[in-house]
């Protein structure tokens, strides 16, 4: 089914956003996030952006203090996911203007609205930034 989960975690390992596309219990999530974060944060810039973990492949990218981690199936196209992360960041940038960790933290609902427009049930639904952002813009106009 493609994307299993999307995590945003800062370099202290604190989760800033977690969106799962398969049902895991809270304990399972905690354990999974702990393991993945430990594995990914320990890696350096010279290492590749893919980490194999349990039945997932983690495709990750770091932006300043924030790590974007996407868990995918083993046969997913890794580079396409890697650039999808960047598309997400660019979309947030367009909305927040130079997005930072605090924006995501304090505007969690907007981050969710954007993700909701981009991914559904683990599949990519939209890649046009204008289309992704239009519902949020409509809403803001209305208030």
């Amino acid at each position: 089914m493609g994307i299993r989960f999307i995590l945003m975690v800062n370099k202290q390992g604190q989760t800033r956003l977690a969106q799962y596309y398969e049902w895991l219990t809270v304990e399972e999530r905690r354990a999974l996030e702990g393991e993945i974060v430990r594995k990914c944060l320990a890696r350096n810039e010279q290492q590749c952006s893919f980490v194999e973990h349990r039945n997932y492949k983690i495709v990750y990218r770091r932006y300043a203090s924030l790590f974007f981690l996407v868990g995918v199936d083993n046969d997913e196209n890794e580079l396409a996911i890697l650039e999808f992360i960047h598309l997400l960041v660019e979309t947030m940038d367009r909305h927040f203007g130079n997005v930072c960790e605090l924006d995501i933290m304090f505007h969690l609902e907007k981050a969710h609205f954007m993700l909701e427009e981009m991914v559904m049930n683990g599949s990519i639904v939209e890649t046009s930034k204008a289309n992704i952002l239009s519902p949020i813009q409509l809403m803001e106009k209305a208030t």
Partner: protein
Amino acid sequence: MTMHGMRGLSVFISDIRNCQNKEQERLRIDKELGNVRNRFKNEKGLTPYEKKKYVWKMLYIYMLGYDVDFGHMETVSLISAPKYPEKQVGYIATSCLLNENNDFLRLAINTVRNDIIGRNETFQCLALTMVGNIGGREFAESLAPDVQNLLLSSSCRPLVRKKAALCLLRLYRKNPDVVNVDGWADRMAQLLDERDLGVLTSSMSLLVALVSNNHEAYWSCLPKCVKILERLARNQDVPQEYTYYGIPSPWLQVKTMRALQYFPTIEDPSTRRTLFEVLQRILMGTDVVKNVNKNNASHAVLFEALALVMHLDAEKEMMSQCVALLGKFIAVREPNIRYLGLENMTRMLMVTDVQEIIKRHQAQIITSLKDPDVSIRRRALDLLYGMCDVTNAKDIVEELLQYLSSADFTMREELSLKAAILAEKFAPDLSWYVDVILQLIDKAGDFISDDIWFRVVQFVTNNDDLQPYAAAKVKEYIDKPAVHETMVKVSAYILGEYSHLLARRPGCSPKEIFSILHEKLATVSTTTIPILLSAYAKILMHTQPPDQELQSQIWAIFNKYESCIDAEIQQRAVEYLALCQKGAALMDILAEMPKFPERKSSLIKRAEYSEADTAEQSATKLRAQQQTSNALVVTDQYPANGVTLRISVGQLSLIKVPSMITTENDTSTDQALSQQNGSLSKVDPQPPSVDLLSDILGPFAVEGPPGATVQSEHIAVSGLEGGSDAVDGSAIVPVEEHTNTVQPIGNIAERFHALCLKDSGVLYEDPYIQIGIKAEGRGHHVHLVLFLGNKNTAPLVSVHAIILPPAHLKMEFSLVPDTIPPRAQVQCPLEIVNLRPSRDVAVLDFSYKFGTNMVNVKLRLPAVLNKFLQPIQVPAEEFFPQWRSLSGPPLKLQEVVRGVRPMPLPEMANLLDSFRIMICPGLDPNPNNLVASTTFYSESTHAMLCLVRIETDPADRTQLRMTLASGDPSLTFELKEFIKEQLISIPTARSPAPAPKAPPTAQPTPQIPPNDPAAILAGLLS
């Protein structure tokens, strides 16, 4: 409605952020949860705005990893709010917090449907997204037609249709019948004519799911996909918004090429030509550019194109172009591209015959095996394993061995297994093979399973030239101060048989060999001592002229072990001592082991495992011939290749979980076996009775000659298969055990089943005592502690606890004190070693006296097969070669199971998961199938990989086909039966187990001695 509107939420987030530590965070969160809970209690006073705010707080807390077990109703109720902001929060939070089986969610179906069929586009989008994310089967049944209408409607705008496409995908996964609509494939093809790239992107995901399950139906979509790809590749009519760093939607390109990979071939010449033109353009036209994002995006497309070219089995020229590209990639510095180069080269090996070209890159790949990045090392290892053949085996295996010393722990097991397989498969000469395996044992003994060293013994035995070499070689290793126990085993065996060939070499006199071996005796476990004893006997026999000193030394050792508590050691010591005193006759009895029969060599890989069994059988031949006649001991015999199944029958029948549905044949066979004399174990390995097997194992091809030569025992057993009338009734009547007037609290069977899935809990409880259990497992060892708690103010006396272990478990149980003081708890540790695969269960026979009440219970201990499993994820590149190499019975068994408790696939996956069998998603393209893997640990198998495939029939959930594969025939069989039992009925879901009721006719059965474990077990399970 923006954040300013939710000041409370901002304040809360700030508070959390300012927490100094986890403890503070927890306190703050507890406070907030209390607050929200209180506010929800008085729901009437809440404005929609407040509800919205609290739901966001819940979501935030949930995201931080705290359980939020309330407020679900309030969340779902926001869905029916009239205004968009509240409704939106309701839908999004519902997707995040609830799972598809939540009752509140089901109750909301009507509201959701109204939003979907309503006129408000934004509401439609919200509802479709939520259903697309977490909609369950009921949603599929009630919403599918509406969603299909939206997807195909010409009046609907793309923003709704793209969501409808993925919503339908979800519903299809929940119930594949939703697309069983006349003409659906044609409509799907029409849908691909769409110009909007958003709708196409999501429709393409839907198409991938559909064609992966049934490409036949969607042939008409194939040319459309090629058209879409052509449009993108040529950048025709692609809006700027869908162009990413100059590349027309790389994601849609990738998805489209993925869909094309599910069609086996492309027949239409013009479509094929067009596609190859596009692919050629991608292959040739992708340059490395400076911009990282552009580079990644174009290479994402390139790698997908490579995969498609491989799939289509293009002309040789294009294929070599692909290999050349990959060769370039695996040499670049950029780690992502290198990783993907290695990964795709491995895939290429699986698809086509390009080994020769790939081999040219061997040196480069070996460099990556030493890369600092573990992700890259893994890919390199897989590729090296895949590309290994006779010509390069020596180099590759040497590299693996070298790397083994420095490899991190997580990779050692895989590495050593792969090295062992390659060494055997492609050994250019046998001395090299022996060298490799000995090195492996030396460097990674923990990961070398018995069958690997059995195999060495077999080769050495069968090749006279190899014998002195192997003997000298193992002597070198064993001479070192600290050696792995497996090394002691293989050395003892080989030196026992062949050290006389070295007698003239310095340091190799019988005496010296003996003392080198004997030095190790103190360091080894009881499984190795018998091998050492045999070696001593053989050395002694070979010492000509006899050496009095050596003889008295060895006799003294035999003497010492004559009273050993371990039956195997004791028996050997007694027998060898007696044999030694026979003088000349000794020569014949202890003569060199005969050659092992060579198998048909067509299945090298299968032989690798099964022949090892024979090796072991020979190694234990003496023992087997001396076995006592007890039904339990039957299982003690190691299965030779052909007799495995018969043995398994014996094993499976010793004890049965009550919920297990077996045919009566099993029971009767079992009873027959246990009543027959135990001379079964004396029977020479014979092909099993075909009738018996086919009856018990169902649709299952048994190889080997028909049972014409079946021995009398077999006939007797087969004679019973007809039905229960042939069974000696008394044997299955339970032993009287309910003299107890004390009633247990709770259901014993349920407690047992619960403990099979978890590590600690209560095993038994009555008004006087509680028996708790705590287990800790590591590989084939389980450390179990029984907690016996006296609940009263008076002591419990005459406390007895006896463990009745099945043959496959070695158990050491500490003594239980006779008296348990008032209100005291006694802890009794129990060490369990799993010797080999079996589903038999150990029983605790426990009794005590309280006042005048004598209480006696027999409790099954949850040291069951799944406790020796460790979940493991096997990547596709490993799974498939393994799967293929285990090509058929008895290593790979298949069975159609009927009468399965109907359950959705995810539930079945969870069930397997709870037994530590891990689902490997994505390996099987058919969504109705499950592929899973696990590692089984036992002393005989060591860590052994087991692969499972379950094919379900969406039209009939009560049946499925199950295929099991592992390197050990009895493991394959036992695990298959085990899973079957779980699927047929779920023990935990069962209300009162049939345990304690004896049939009215039940009488204590005088024929069976009260301490016969088999009978006690039968009694327990009536």
